[in-house]
């Protein structure tokens, strides 16, 4: 199974990597439990910075599409087929839309919503 990225595509390189790996899983080209190349190997093969590949792998791990097992390597997550079809960004957007709708129904203004959101983000970061 090969993946191809285009360095002149407006889509960020790490996003291209994430999408291609998810697509490979969804199309059954790689299966749960299959091992994936190391960050260094994939970065060298694609002539990318290893941080780009590391970022893609981190996002895939967050989405439970892959799992890192230390020195043993990186593997496709057992639930990758289901998880690769989930769009986390769409999920976040849907949740926020729901919350915003609820606030507007309660009569909260746009600027009050923005201030509350910013305050919530700051308290999470602290």
């Amino acid at each position, binding site marked *: *199974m*090969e*993946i*191809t*990225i*285009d*360095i*002149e*595509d407006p889509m960020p390189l790490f996003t291209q990597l994430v999408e291609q*790996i998810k697509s*490979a899983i969804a199309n059954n*080209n*790689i299966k749960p439990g299959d*091992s*994936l*190349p*190391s960050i*260094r*190997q*994939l970065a*060298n*093969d*694609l*002539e*990318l910075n290893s941080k780009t590949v590391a970022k893609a792998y981190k996002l895939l791990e967050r989405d439970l599409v892959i799992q890192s097992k230390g020195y043993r*390597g990186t593997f496709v997550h057992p639930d990758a087929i289901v998880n690769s079809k989930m769009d986390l960004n769409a999920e976040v957007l849907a949740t926020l839309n729901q919350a915003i709708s609820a606030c507007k129904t309660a009569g909260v203004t746009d600027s009050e919503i923005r201030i509350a959101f910013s305050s919530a983000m700051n308290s999470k970061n602290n």
Partner: protein
Amino acid sequence: MSIHILFYALFLSQIILISYYYPKQIIKRIDGVLKNYPPEDYPKLYPESPDKVIAAKARYQLLNQIIFFAGLALMGVYALMSAGYDDNQKFAEGLPLMFGMVQFIPFMLLEISGCRQFKLMRKANKSTSRSAGLAPRKLFDYVSPLSVILAVVLIFAFIFFDLYINDFVFTSDIIIRIIALCLVHGLFIGLTIKQLTGKRLDPHQAVKDRSQQTEFSLQSMVSVSMFLSLFLIANSAVEFYQLSYLEIIINSIYFQVIAFFGIGGMLRTIRLDNINFDVYRADKANV
């Protein structure tokens, strides 16, 4: 006299195999590429003018011819010089070893030329699209664990044997041999890491071809490691048991075995008709 005849037969075989037969096969291979994959249809394969490839081929051919005839001449000279020698009398000392190293020079120069070609291909590659396989490259995917274990065992077997015949005294010769062995294997380990995780030299090479090349390289290094250890054991034994007249025979056999598994192995394993040359065609957008 029988030892001398055996040596001449082996040395002649060494000259023919390494300076005639394998260069002829390589030239045939280069001609095959030039004929079947010409620059008009496969421009990415020729970052420079194909005339440079032809010139390099001619230089390689000439160098091998010079070494071939030099080898025959040397054999003739030694035959004359040692006409009256006994079987157990040392003669042609160092000849197969020194000559063997000279015989490998054209192959090393060809390898350097190949690396330069790949560098030019990488420089000329303007494609924005990059591909990679999603399969990890792990050592034991290409070589059997048993062969690696055997190679390691043979290294320690040689060190143990060398120490054993020297009453476990670390003489300077033993230390030099161990250091040389460590350096060679350090080089092998470095090359292995580069093969498994490094960037590809040929920017257009198909994933399947890279995998095949990696497999051959790694198996070849394991084989060479094993033969090197056996060669060193044989040389130490010959020295210890005062069979020095056998040294030239062992040296000649060693070089031929290395050539058979190295150069010969490459020619047998990586066949032109198995390589994906479509990757060297012009991009459709540029046609």
